[in-house]
């Protein structure tokens, strides 16, 4: 009689499924860059940096030196300092605007996906209207009308993000609301609010958060584009987009003035995308399996 060989190769058995290993080096590099960016941006006022707005007309477009690590820009302002202070603007707008979208869009999407019916048609319909506007043109129009300020910029970018968040939240809620655990919760006498907040929200928040990180990346780029066009933050405040815009004038003499902020933006956006993608990949199969 044949016996079934049940011993597992010890090397295989000893290998625990480590999450860290699966995430890969690139993920941790991205996280590292994000932490570095945030730390520098938050600590900017206490760091021993020259003022980002002090001009030194004698040292215009100065090359790298001990005094100015990354040189100076066309008006003799310290490039490194402007880059770091620009990160503050880019990150604040890049984070706050998607938070507006996440909160409002997420709430609308969950309500629409849970209650269905006329409310859903109304929400989806109005979001389609909002989506039909060319976003950059709308942002241009609003900043031109309400004036250039960080608050206005954040607000308009946030509103533009609502439809996308609404769709993600609604799609997730639609599938989840039919799961048996929602009926089970109803059978246990749970209120609608409880089902939405305690049963559905913890499930919906995973794909929403992954999408949030991607939205941060997109928002940083859009903020850069608006600032590049001169409709972002008002001068002399620096943001990466403004710096690229200013650097354009001296591309032939000092291309680094445009490329340094572009590289900072590129790396930051790439990091957010990488982390967002990894998290989405982590949450997606689990959603399907359960």
């Amino acid at each position, binding site marked *: 009689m044949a016996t079934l060989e049940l011993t597992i190769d010890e090397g295989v058995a000893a290998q625990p499924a480590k999450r860290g290993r699966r995430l890969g080096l690139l993920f941790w590099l991205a996280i590292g860059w994000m932490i570095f960016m945030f730390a520098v941006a938050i600590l900017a006022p206490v760091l021993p940096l020259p003022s980002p707005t002090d001009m030194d007309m004698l040292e215009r477009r100065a090359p790298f030196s001990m005094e100015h690590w990354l040189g100076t820009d066309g008006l003799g302002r310290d490039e490194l300092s402007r880059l770091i202070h620009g990160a503050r603007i880019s990150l604040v707008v890049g984070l706050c605007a998607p938070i507006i979208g996440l909160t409002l869009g997420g709430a609308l999407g969950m309500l629409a996906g849970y209650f269905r019916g006329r409310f859903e048609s109304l929400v989806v319909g109005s979001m389609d209207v909002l989506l039909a506007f060319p976003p950059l043109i709308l942002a241009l129009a609003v900043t031109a009308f309400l004036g250039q300020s960080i608050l206005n910029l954040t607000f308009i970018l946030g509103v533009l993000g609502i439809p996308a968040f609404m769709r993600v939240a609604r799609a997730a809620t639609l599938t989840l609301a039919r799961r048996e655990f929602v009926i*089970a919760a109803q*059978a*246990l*006498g*749970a209120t609608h609010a409880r089902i939405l907040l305690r049963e559905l929200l913890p499930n919906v928040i*995973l794909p929403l958060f992954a999408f949030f990180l991607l939205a941060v990346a997109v928002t940083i780029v859009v903020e850069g584009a608006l600032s590049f066009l001169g409709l972002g933050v008002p001068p002399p405040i620096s943001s990466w987009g403004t710096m690229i815009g200013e650097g354009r004038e001296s591309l032939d003499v000092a291309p680094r003035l445009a490329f340094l902020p572009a590289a900072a933006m590129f790396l930051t956006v790439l990091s957010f995308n990488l982390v967002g993608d990894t998290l989405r990949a982590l949450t997606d199969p689990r959603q399907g399996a*359960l």
Partner: protein
Amino acid sequence: MTDNTLLSVEDVAVDLPTPRGNLRAVDRVNLTLGAGQTLGVVGESGCGKTMLSRAILQLLPRKAKLSGRVMFDGQDLLQLSPEKLRKLRGRSLAVVFQDPMTSLNPVLTIGTQLIETLQEHLELDDATATRRSIELLAAVGIPAPEQRLAQYPHQLSGGMRQRVAIAIALSCEPKLLIADEPTTALDVTIQAQILDLLAREQRRRHMAMIIITHDLGVVAGRTDEVAVMYAGRVVERAPTPALFKKMRMPYTEALLAALPRLDAAPHTPLPAISGRPPDPTRPLQGCSFSPRCRYAVARCQTEKPALQAAETSAHQFACFHPIETHAEAGA
């Protein structure tokens, strides 16, 4: 009807609008259940068992139309305000669903799900609720209940999950527990354990229970009364011993014949019920089982048999040619 009656389902019908027309999922069902009693509802897939349980709980799909009366503990559930109904569910009426994989929230810990249910209905403080949760988990036979509280449903096996679902259902000491195919998603050895657990907890808490299943074997030793459903109607209803002693409806006989038997010789073909249940959107004029019934005669195709009493009024069946008559005719 005695004062002991906890649940009475009177003329309940459920209509579901579908693109192909109106679907009558439950067709004028009458049932009563006394406190502490167990009722088995048996029938094959799609015969309206689950819809009946959802009708009792008032958890039907939004478009479904419900008519009739569901009296529970002296209150008509159909007339109750949503708020009162909500308070009744979980507190007095609880359910265990078929698939423990989907009836627990995948992203909340076992403890969160149990404790929140307890706090929702009983207004306990955190420490008391935690202690009761541990007691409940221990009562349903979960080893190391303290550690389970911090675990997620995917860390438990199917049988364990169903035990947790039962613990949640039992948490507020309901008067009626509806077990909707509680063992269908589990393997056979676990099935017996779960059914024994349900029976034990039922006796201990003196609650009434409705077991919904497609397996006559499940209801045989564990119920006081059995209702056999076919195409949305109750076709035979009897106290369990009477049903198994002398079944009258050919459908019940066919269901029982379709059970695999331990004493049968190996490779004995399992008699299946030929054909499929009728399309519920196209109701038959006559007995809905007639196309598949081996005793069917012309009358069965034109006239619907009503429920009639057999020897005792407790045993009812809906058939023009109950099985015994055939035996006599053959003798």
